């Protein structure tokens, strides 16, 4: 078994008393017995929060607007957007990369942290995984919507056509298809497998036979027998093991959509790591945006403690700093290459070009805001965390916008330079996708156990066990209650 202290890598730990306290701060506190805990964690499934209905309807309406904007695009053609030549990709691809980036935090939390035995993942991993799934739903919509002839999207898939022609696997777009479909499938399986024991709990706790039957079906008849747990354990860990390289590969491949091109601002070898870091960064920002309200509304302070917030903040600080480093590398590489076009795009167009203002906002938000988290108090201040989360969430959208539009609008021949301006359809698609996400997420909060009950119980037992054990030699502080 592992220790429960925060990762030593944490730069804040040196000398900060506040942090020392925090390290002693429990992952779970004042936990009641299993029965009560289960009741508490499953309560949201049986009782609807008054605000929920309105939020759900609002997001539903927004999703319908999303549908309408798609309809317009299908009916009229891509011309309904602001895209042009040279800026043939713009909002839709920005949204695509943004959403899929957000999608990375979920798997990161559940897979990476599981393998690293980061116990604090237990309370929030299901939320994060759900976020991943719903983000991926959006992410997979945009590329199809973006096609000039969407009804032929299946031509990107290798199937035996009577035309006798195939996709071109030298292009990164078929890679995308493979990556996104795989990522979605694996995330779904992983999420569902993790859900099974809790669905069983829900089955056995649900008021009324119908609900019990419904949850019962989805629980697949899980009974938590030793045999079940024995295989389940392995399968779950294997999926985590597979998802971990997957999550890295997916955004690397997405980054290749740009990196394999020779456009200045895209044609860069650091893109894969740079994009992966950015993805996790934006993902954690959104996790904050979701976890904080959920924690507040459902009074989950005992399972989602300041420790969790602190760790997420630390991860933001780390990934944010890595991202800042990538920005520097990009600029330096352009300068060092001595290439006229690279230099112009990265050093002149980005900083002084028509979209410079977005570049500077993006840099300020993505590079500076996470630096707040050198201070432990800010790391646990709910308001600060939420605001920073939102800022980064927007900042990362701007990053993709800058990379895509601000590179395309000024390429090699000045004769073809042209500006891009979004139309109402572009805006509707962006807003609508957020609406769809909220819609799905609210549904999830209402009907699915969003805190992994069984894992929390398990953690609780382990912590109790360890603390009992460490108390004897008094090496470690009391942690459970």
């Amino acid at each position: 078994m592992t220790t429960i202290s925060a990762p030593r890598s944490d730069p804040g730990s040196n000398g900060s008393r506040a942090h020392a306290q925090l390290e002693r701060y429990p992952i779970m506190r004042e936990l009641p017995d299993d029965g009560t805990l289960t009741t508490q964690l499953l309560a949201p499934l049986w009782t609807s929060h008054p605000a929920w209905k309105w939020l759900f309807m609002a997001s539903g309406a927004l999703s319908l607007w999303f549908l309408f904007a798609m309809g317009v695009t299908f009916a009229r053609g891509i011309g309904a957007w602001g895209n042009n030549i040279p800026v043939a990709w713009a909002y839709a691809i920005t949204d695509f990369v943004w959403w899929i980036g957000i999608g990375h935090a979920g798997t990161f939390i559940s897979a990476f942290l599981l393998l690293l035995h980061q116990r604090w993942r237990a309370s929030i991993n299901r939320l994060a995984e759900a976020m991943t799934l719903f983000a991926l739903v959006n992410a997979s919509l945009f590329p199809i919507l973006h096609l000039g002839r969407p009804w032929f999207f299946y031509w990107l898939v290798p199937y035996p056509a009577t035309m006798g022609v195939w996709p071109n696997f030298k292009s990164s777009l078929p890679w995308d298809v493979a990556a996104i479909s795989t990522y979605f499938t694996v995330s779904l399986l992983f999420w569902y497998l993790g859900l099974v024991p809790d669905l069983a709990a829900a089955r056995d706790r649900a008021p009324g036979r119908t609900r019990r039957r419904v949850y019962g079906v989805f629980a697949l008849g899980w009974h938590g027998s030793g045999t079940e747990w024995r295989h389940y354990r392995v399968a779950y860990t294997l999926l985590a093991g597979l998802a971990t390289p997957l999550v890295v590969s997916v955004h690397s491949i997405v980054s290749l959509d740009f990196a394999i091109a020779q456009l200045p601002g895209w044609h860069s070898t650091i893109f894969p790591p740079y994009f992966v870091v950015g993805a996790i960064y934006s993902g954690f920002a959104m996790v904050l945006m979701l976890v904080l309200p959920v924690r507040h509304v459902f009074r989950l302070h005992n399972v989602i403690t300041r420790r969790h917030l602190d760790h997420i903040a630390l991860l933001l600080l780390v990934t944010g700093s890595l991202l800042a480093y990538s920005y520097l590398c990009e600029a330096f590489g352009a300068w060092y290459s001595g290439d006229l076009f690279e230099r112009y795009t990265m050093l002149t167009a980005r900083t002084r070009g028509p979209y410079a203002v977005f570049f500077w906002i993006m840099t300020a938000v993505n590079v500076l805001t996470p630096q707040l988290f050198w201070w432990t108090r800010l790391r646990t201040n709910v308001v600060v965390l939420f605001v920073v989360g939102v800022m980064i969430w927007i900042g990362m959208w701007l990053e993709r916008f800058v990379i895509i539009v601000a590179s395309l609008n000024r390429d090699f021949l000045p004769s073809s330079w042209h500006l891009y301006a979004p139309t109402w359809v572009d805006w509707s698609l962006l807003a609508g996708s957020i609406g769809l996400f909220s819609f799905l997420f609210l549904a999830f909060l209402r009907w699915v156990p969003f805190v992994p009950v069984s894992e929390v119980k398990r953690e609780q037992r382990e912590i109790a066990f360890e603390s009992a054990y460490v108390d004897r030699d008094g090496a470690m502080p009391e942690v459970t209650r």
Partner: protein
Amino acid sequence: MTHPRLAAEFTTADALQAAVDALAREHYRELETYAPFDMPELDAKLGRRRSRLGWVVVAGGLAGLIIAYGIQWWANVHSYPLYVGGRPAHAVPAFVPATFEGMILAASLTAFFGVLIVLRLPKLWIPEDEIDGFSRASVDRFWVTANHFASDLDRDRAAELMRSAGARRVIVAED
């Protein structure tokens, strides 16, 4: 018979563990335990081996890898080779990403459906379901059940051990 011959309910994991210890000590191995969460510590005592699912998954992954690369090779090199951007038809580096994804996908599917098959899931009904209150096994109760006993004496001994380990109740099916 509708439910196991012997079933005991415990209120804490520790009690369950104690019961299993006691039973194991007296070489009762044909036991099944039920708990709301994973208790790997029981496996050793009951002589449960580590799951072999891993090897199946490896096989699945390899298959996926080969199929994925095969498709790409067939499509771009064998079936309809085209001059694309002055690159060779058999562009190995370009085939890597999709191959990797194919491998992961196949492996994950194997893992998921593998565990369903191994556990015979879905299994909506088991005899224990007939025991009143057994459903709390997924919430806050811990159960031990056993079906095979050399004799009724044997069974009663087991029941005895369970009680002494602090079973809340022990259900014995008379026959």
